[in-house]
């Protein structure tokens, strides 16, 4: 059965983030004044990386269950890691954990145990800064993604299939990206094809849509293209999506419109996760 390979240090899997850093990402996000799409992407990606690292953390260190890559595309196409990881393509997650470009302190409201909220300082590691320059070479970015993943799958032929998370506002400037995306999802390990999640960040203030199974209600042609090219959720992911209250229909795809991607990390299976740990 596909998508059942164990994720372990001897048989790691891979996460590849493909991030739109084009000029249009400086536009406001979801109609929110003051927040640019590029800020939303950098925040979302830093949070996803943080959650992935935490998921692999034990007290003796971070276990290398994954290799991680971040491709940025805009003025240039290539690794978007900063700091000590700058220029690197796929790196073991323990290296990601050890090398954020910087660690911010952010305020978080937490329950004070007496019905109120109290502000607490939390650490927020940053690997990626908001960038918004020039065109949207999506085809070139997906071609690089396919090259990197071919290398990974050749080295780990029985791995849980790599997961690609592509975050964009959807307007490719170097041609129709459909073929390049299909070339990505055509890559397979013995456990199944690469899974592509497309996250569409729009300036359009439409309500968020997560994991639809049809394109009818999507607001524009960019959203429809990103829906069509996204992978179907695996049965395990469908189960988790159900538990999280998304009510996905059969055939639901890894497509999110103006929404967040918490499900992707929640649905990774590296062992027992207590139901009372949220």
């Amino acid at each position: 059965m596909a998508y059942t390979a164990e994720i372990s240090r001897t048989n790691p899997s891979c996460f590849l983030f493909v991030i739109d850093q084009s000029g249009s990402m400086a536009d406001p996000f979801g109609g929110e004044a003051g927040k640019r799409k590029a800020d939303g992407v950098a925040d979302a990606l830093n949070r996803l990386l943080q959650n992935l690292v935490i998921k692999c953390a034990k007290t003796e260190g971070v276990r290398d269950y994954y290799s991680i890559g971040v491709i940025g595309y805009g003025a240039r196409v290539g690794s978007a890691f900063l700091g000590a990881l700058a220029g690197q393509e796929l790196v073991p997650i323990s290296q990601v954990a050890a090398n954020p470009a910087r660690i911010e302190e952010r305020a978080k409201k937490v329950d004070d145990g007496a019905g109120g909220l109290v502000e607490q300082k939390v650490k927020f590691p940053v690997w990626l800064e908001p960038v918004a320059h020039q065109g949207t070479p999506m085809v070139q970015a997906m071609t690089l993604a396919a090259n990197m993943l071919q290398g990974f799958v050749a080295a780990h032929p029985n791995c849980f299939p790599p997961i690609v998370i592509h975050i964009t506002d959807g307007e490719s400037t170097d041609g129709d990206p459909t073929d390049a995306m299909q070339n990505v999802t055509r890559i397979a390990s013995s456990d199944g094809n690469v899974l592509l999640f497309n996250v569409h960040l729009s300036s359009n203030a439409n309500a968020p849509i997560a994991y639809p199974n049809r394109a009818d209600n999507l607001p524009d042609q960019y959203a429809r293209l990103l829906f069509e090219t996204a992978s179907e959720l695996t049965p395990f992911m469908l189960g988790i999506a159900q538990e999280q209250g998304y009510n996905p229909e059969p055939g639901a795809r890894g497509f999110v419109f103006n929404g967040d991607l918490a499900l992707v990390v929640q649905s990774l299976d590296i062992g027992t996760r207590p139901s009372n740990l949220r």
Partner: protein
Amino acid sequence: MNLERYALWQPKAGNALDEYEDAFVLPRRARNGKPFVCAIADGATESLLSRQWAQVLTRQFARQWLAARDWRGWWNETLRVWQNEKRAYMERRARADKPVQWYEEPGLEAGAFAALLGLVLMPTPHALTWRAAAVGDCCLVQVRDDKLLAAFPMQDAHAFNNRPYLLSSNPARNDALAEQWRFAEGNFAAGDRIYVMTDALAAWFLRASEAGARPWDEADAHRNADAFAAWLAELRATRAIRNDDVTLIRLQYRG
């Protein structure tokens, strides 16, 4: 008390021995006329200090379950012991100049998680009674006359999943705990066998039994550490069993 007993364990394939996060207590002595207490626990992969927490739970069950008035009394004392244990751990880290890293903070704050199953054998004039208490998916199976007589708290192989409710060292995560405790008891007659297992082996055991096989005979055929390890390697290779830490306590009452 003529009680034949042994315990076997193996870490998840690919993990080092010191990454084993189950724990168990199986006393060497079984005194006539006295209760016999053993326990097994399974620390969650996705929590920090799981092994230490599983060890505290089993040790506390063996030491204090019978003396406590009810599970609440035992639980409060166990959380107190854990606080000391965690403080000592943090002090050791500080002394070793290994400060807590940013990626450990959320896990340490969320707490450690583990499943627990404790078992008490109570002598009665002509036999033994077993009483068990559990939270989570560790499992006890009783076999009599070559038939599965009882399974507790999981009744069948379908009941296992990757998201069990577990005992947390963080009281805020144990909201519904009162509803999660499971209790059972039964007679332990001469010749009966009890197998207490962590989830991966228990799921295999129940699945095999449901398919009409006699998994107890297969388990009994691998009684020493090497044979047990080789057998598990075979089950894992054919994916008959999930790759996870495995612990088995086997008890047989000889009358």
